[in-house]
């Protein structure tokens, strides 16, 4: 199809969302009646997307350079040597048993009923993962808390445990909300665990 300059510009305006709602509807209706015009619109859409992707890649390279320029010496060494701290490795979590015994007991008791009731509503992967997390949490309770981090850890463990409990009580929406909050908190001891669980859900 040999487009006139006016047709070409009209298609551009349509793709850029510059047409009024009324004009947009009329134009879309005309596309259904004109296969050639529809193909031209698709070609321009693809071309525009392809060029925008080139722009994205150009700006990503620039962002990468700025990122490298702003690393301090230690971070540079880590990255250059590929000696990166594994973010997803389980962190050492120490907290006193007495502080958590009650919470853990409640969670464990609830889990029996939950495992029976919710296995048809949540994927087995999520169930197994949550159960593993609870087991790890119970083991960690036996350690001694570092006094500096104790308060922070206590709060973070409470948030994590609450999210696990929500999974067990089938409150998927609330579980996702709590997990998202943890996943978005930089430096949260359970940030990576929350991300993994969200991904599995």
């Amino acid at each position, binding site marked *: 199809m040999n487009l006139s*300059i006016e047709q*070409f*510009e009209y298609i551009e305006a349509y793709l*850029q969302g510059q047409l009024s709602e009324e004009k947009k509807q009329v134009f879309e209706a005309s596309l259904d009646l004109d296969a050639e015009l529809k193909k031209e619109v698709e*070609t*321009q859409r*693809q*071309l*525009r*997307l*392809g*060029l*925008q*992707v*080139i*722009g*994205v*890649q*150009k*700006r*990503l*390279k*620039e*962002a*990468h350079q*700025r*990122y490298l320029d*702003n*690393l*301090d010496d230690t*971070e540079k060494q880590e*990255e*250059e040597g*590929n000696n*990166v*701290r*594994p*973010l*997803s490795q389980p962190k050492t979590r120490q907290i006193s048993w007495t502080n958590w015994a009650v919470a853990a007991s409640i969670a464990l008791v609830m889990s029996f009923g939950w495992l029976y009731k919710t296995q048809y509503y949540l994927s087995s992967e999520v169930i197994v993962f949550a159960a593993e997390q609870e087991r790890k949490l119970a083991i960690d309770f036996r350690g001694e808390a570092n006094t500096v981090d104790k308060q922070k850890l206590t709060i973070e463990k409470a948030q994590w445990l609450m999210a696990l409990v929500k999974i067990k009580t089938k409150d998927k929406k609330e579980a*996702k*909300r709590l997990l*998202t909050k943890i*996943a*978005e908190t*930089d430096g949260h001891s359970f940030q*990576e665990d929350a*991300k993994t669980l*969200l*991904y599995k859900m």
Partner: protein
Amino acid sequence: MSNKKLVLDDSELYSLLIDTDNPKAQTQAFDYIYQHFYRQVLTLVTQNNGSQSDAVDTFHQAITNFFISIKEEKYSYTGLAAISSYIYRYSKYIWLNELRRRKIRPKAEYSEDYQIADKKDLVKELERKEKLDAIAKALGQLKDGCREIIEWFYIDELRQREIAEKLGINEPALKQRKYSCTKQLIRITRGIYPDF
């Protein structure tokens, strides 16, 4: 990081990302994404038989895919899952498939995701990649004057008036040149990728 880290919540980040015609918004979004999400992908790749350069390629491809999902309205922000988890998931998908292409088995903890891509997905992605590559190649074959105009309009997203001033021509003349250059670009792209 020696400079100050950007602070954005997911809805703010999403607002910057959907403003796809605004390079400044995109630049800010990418700086934030680099500062907050990159190291996780670097760890994923470098601890699974990849180099730092592989990590950068994987990360860029993941963000590009995420951008395309937004443009094609396959992704819209709901607040339920963090954007970081999408980018990590795309990165993992891309890297595990790259490992498969190189015939390398990933570490045991990733083995369950090893067969993540089915043939249909791969064919679709391959077609899209070929099409995008053809456009990039065709752009490189355009004559300088035309390539400049196309880059300023569609890659740098400059305004028509700015481009006309740069070229020292009026806006109607610029419209005519843009029209003609776009037609040339489509013709060259079709020469490389006939189904375009």
